[in-house]
């Protein structure tokens, strides 16, 4: 399999995607909706490249195109640059002031205010929904269709089967998702609205809230390790560390302390 990318031959394994091969060979292809480890969704289309296979040239998305035969790929032609520019400009109607779009816009000469802005804060990359499915929680999903498509929970309800892992907030490229711990509950906040609400554990020592009370079984099953005992801590990590340190002191140092003290006392007597 002979793969030529931007004029030079690169090493590639059968079935690898164009995006993987490009990353491995230090060739930059922009993306907004793909991270390694998650199934590619080819939603943002910004990673589109020009591919020539069997003397036929066409545009394909690099994140999900598996290389299976000799191919020539161009990752940065004028046509692609124009398309990417327009994608950024169109996405900017949803949220013009986000860093990731500003950076890409600069790179491709996009005018982020070319089209009138809409009141949406998300670029619909779908990463949150995919990562949520991947961790096994299945709380967030894409619902609706067309312009109305949104990230939402089942029927838009405030759900209680969230595991509060925060992967959605962490993966979101435009910081549209927040995790909030308040009054003993953890919530995922979508567009200012509570999407999930789960109980947090209260530390038996200090009384502060820490990690969520969750049923880990489905997650562990998904991770391929069913049967691992669930997490039953009742003390927060900080208190736990403090208690542990105290125990070490009591068990190992205090007897010596006493011995040393008595030794010192005895020395004084002399």
């Amino acid at each position, binding site marked *: 399999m002979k793969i030529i990318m931007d004029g030079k031959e690169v090493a590639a394994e059968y079935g690898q995607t164009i995006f993987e091969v490009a990353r491995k060979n230090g060739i930059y292809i922009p993306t907004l909706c793909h991270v390694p480890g998650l199934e590619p969704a080819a939603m943002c*289309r910004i990673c589109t490249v020009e591919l020539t296979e069997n003397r036929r040239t066409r545009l394909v*998305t690099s994140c*999900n195109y598996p290389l299976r035969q000799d191919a020539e790929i161009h990752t940065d032609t004028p046509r692609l640059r124009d398309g990417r520019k*327009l994608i950024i400009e169109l*996405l900017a109607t*949803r949220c013009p002031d986000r860093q990731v779009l500003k950076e890409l816009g600069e790179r491709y000469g996009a005018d982020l205010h070319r089209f009138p802005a809409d009141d949406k804060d998300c670029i619909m990359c779908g990463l949150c929904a995919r990562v949520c499915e991947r961790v096994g929680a299945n709380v967030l999903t894409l619902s609706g*269709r067309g312009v109305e498509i949104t990230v939402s929970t089942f029927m838009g309800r405030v759900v209680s089967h969230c595991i509060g892992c925060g992967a959605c907030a962490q993966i979101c490229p435009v910081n549209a998702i927040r995790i909030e711990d308040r009054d003993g509950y953890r919530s995922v906040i979508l567009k200012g609205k509570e999407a999930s609400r789960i109980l947090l554990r209260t530390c038996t020592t200090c009384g502060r809230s820490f990690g969520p009370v969750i049923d880990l079984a489905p997650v562990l099953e998904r991770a391929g390790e069913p049967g691992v005992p669930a997490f039953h801590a009742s003390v927060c990590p900080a208190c736990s560390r403090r208690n542990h340190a105290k125990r070490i002191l009591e068990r190992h140092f205090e007897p010596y302390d006493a011995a040393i003290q008595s030794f010192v006392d005895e020395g004084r007597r002399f």
Partner: protein
Amino acid sequence: MTSISPAPDLSWTRKLSRPEDLAAYRNQLIAEQHPDATRILVCCGTGCKALGALDLLAAMKKAVTDANLDVKVAPLVKRTGCHSFCSRGPLLAIQPQDIFYQKLKPSDAAEIVQETIIGGKLIPRFLYKPPGAKHPIEKRSEIPFFAAQTRVVLERVGQIDPFDIRDAIAWGAYNGLVKVLTEMKPKEVIEEMKISKLRGRGGAGFPAGLKWESCARQPGRHYVICNGDEGDPGAFMDASLMEGDPHAVLEGMAIAAYAIGSDRGFIYVRMEYPLAVQTLSNAIRQAEDLGLLGQNILGTGFNFKVSVSTGAGAFVCGESSALMSSLEGKVGRPRPKYIRSTEKGFRDSPSNLNNVETYANVPKIILNGGAWYASMGTERSAGTKVFSLTGNVNNVGLIEVPMGTSLRHIVYDIGGGIPNRKELKAVQTGGPSGGCIPIPKKFLDINVGFGKLAEIGSIMGSGGMIVMDENTCMVEVSRYFIHFLVEESCGQCTPCREGLTQMERILTRITRGEGQEGDIELLEEIGTFTNSFSLCGLGTSAANPVLSTIRYFREEYEEHIRDKKCRAGVCKALYYLEIQPDACTGCGVCKKRCPAKAVTGEKKEPHLIRQDLCIKCMECYRNCKFDAIAIR
């Protein structure tokens, strides 16, 4: 509406357990029918049904019973599928006398029985009279709308009772299946399909034989899927086929299953086609009762089970991968995968997906040979194609013509021309993914086929054909289609979701008279971009209506933007109505019709329209007998 229990009980019939049994059963059925029996075929397709065809059917049945006919053979009143002349419904045909009655009411039934069936006389007012002609046409086969067609796929539609498999068998249904089961190997079936050069009728035109071959080559369990999710505005070909002759589709699927080695099939029909769902489900049950589908078909050991699955009304589910997702019970969104569904489709198994019409062609090809089929049509587009002819044309209906027929033949000979002395402006083909072909310029004699239409910036699509007259605004047409697609886009990918939204905004702006310089260029930029960067077939063809109208009607866009004028009189902000004093006779029709009381003037004097009151409802324009009202 009268409800009639349509399906006869067949549970008493014995299962046909050998291939020879079908021919024997068919001969028995034909012998049961008297050759001289008068058959009254009442169209109960969706169009006629909406106009009260079921009441007409009941009235005809009652009239025949009441008449207490003193004849040897009682006339047979039959419920059939679409007769295809939809603009003339409710209608019926009387065979073998070859009579065609149209625009009927249930109250006409008794008269028809008395005069025509008993008296043997024609009733002139029910006969079809072509626009402008003096005398009605007496024979059904002489009506140009029927005479100019070549009916291959539609042969049985309108002739048989879609709810009675016996009728279909008497007309030769399932003979093709018997032929492949007894005489042909799967490989030979595929070879025959390749010889026929049949190309997929869903729109893309992929050769069916090649698709079957590549699917058959894959290991694993195979599925046969039929795409009946016809969602184009103004298209009803697949609906009429499924409603009129469900057995042709089932037989085609069974043959495909035999060829690719499958034992399971699905028909995906949109929920908005309740009649099609009914006829198909009933046809499957009856075919299974007779042993023509299901386990051990005709004792040959070949199994094929078919189920009907209904979609929830999403246009995008007509796209193959979205259809399969929907069939699996998932959200109907196209899959972002560069893998053919013949390799990994439904449940990640090799799946063969074809359109309703494609499958309906298969039995004919098997029976008559691939060479016979290839001899029809053109070199690159073989066979016939069903079109639904709608819009500003006299004869609205379902037509079947060989590929390569000219648009002139379709619009003028079959369609009967444009009503109300209007000029033909354009023909829109291929639904929302297609384009508008400007007619007066040069394309009236273009031959309709896959390649030719693509060349001039449209597509064949599944066969929708909308005829547009001079009162159609091309900017509004493209706005309409883009609006439709914005609503129906799945919303997954950026170009389709955001690009179409922006295009709709710009087009709406133009039609409101707020167009700006540079809008046309912007539309072209976004249009070419969405067409090349989108994920699925919907997105990559979504901008076609805009691009093709800009290509051929650019001056109309420019008029909208620069002169703030809509020459067709559609965009309300961009025209006004004026009475031409020299043409106006002062008859007062416009004054009487005007709901806003904007027309003033004395009788026999030229009238005037007060622009401050006019709401541009076009009522005066449509009703003026002297063409005195002009769009300015």
